[in-house]
């Protein structure tokens, strides 16, 4: 299974989830996460989002994070799909799915993958609406979340 995909197209949450177990009967646990574009402007000033990325580095960075997770926990299949390009409020942006023999590894690894992705994978969100565009700022809480796994700068 290819662990990492970066694409403009929508993905199927059901299909991606199904494939994490998919006849591997040594897999006892599957944990998934889906991140969505939130409607920040509550419909008043209809907005959309644009996800920029660093082609080449993006896939590599995500694969790196998956490799780290596989070294740290006893995982079976892992899948990250991250969309780029134009997105609307309510669109799924990212899917992270993990399979393992027992649940603890999957719960922890899924959390780890998201926390590290948020602080190290080269994506940048831009909110576009009628009054203009604004790049989203990184959040302190994301840095704190990543630090709890012992991941330091670069």
């Amino acid at each position: 299974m290819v662990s990492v995909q970066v694409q403009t197209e929508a993905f199927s949450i059901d299909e991606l989830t199904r494939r994490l177990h998919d006849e591997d009967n040594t897999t006892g646990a599957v944990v998934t996460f889906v991140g969505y574009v939130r409607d920040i402007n509550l419909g008043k000033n209809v907005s959309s989002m644009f996800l920029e990325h660093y082609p080449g580095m993006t896939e590599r960075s995500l694969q790196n994070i998956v490799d780290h997770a596989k070294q740290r926990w006893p995982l079976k299949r892992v899948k990250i799909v991250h969309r780029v390009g134009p997105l609307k409020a309510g669109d799924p942006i990212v899917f992270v799915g993990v399979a393992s023999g027992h649940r603890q590894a999957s719960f922890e690894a899924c959390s780890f993958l998201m926390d590290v992705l948020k602080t190290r994978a080269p994506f940048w969100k831009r909110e576009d609406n009628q009054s203009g565009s604004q790049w989203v700022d990184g959040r302190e809480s994301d840095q704190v979340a990543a630090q709890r796994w012992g991941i330091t700068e670069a």
Partner: protein
Amino acid sequence: MILINYFARYREQLGSGGEKIVHNTSIRTVDDVRNLLIERGGAWKEVLGEASLMCALNQELCKLDAPIEDFDEIAFFPQVTGG
């Protein structure tokens, strides 16, 4: 030549998606490149002087003191916001 890429807000503020600069022996680290660009003043000084700046060397995240060689690819960008 060293290839430099700028992304997202940095690209917009600098008015450039990237450039190549000639490598010489006084350019030893990613930070040396950053300081060279900062010397241009204006937006270069403001943007590349940001504390939250992130950088990559040959498409992997790196620290500012990462050693560089001729033909390396560098990128400077704001704090990432994926996921």
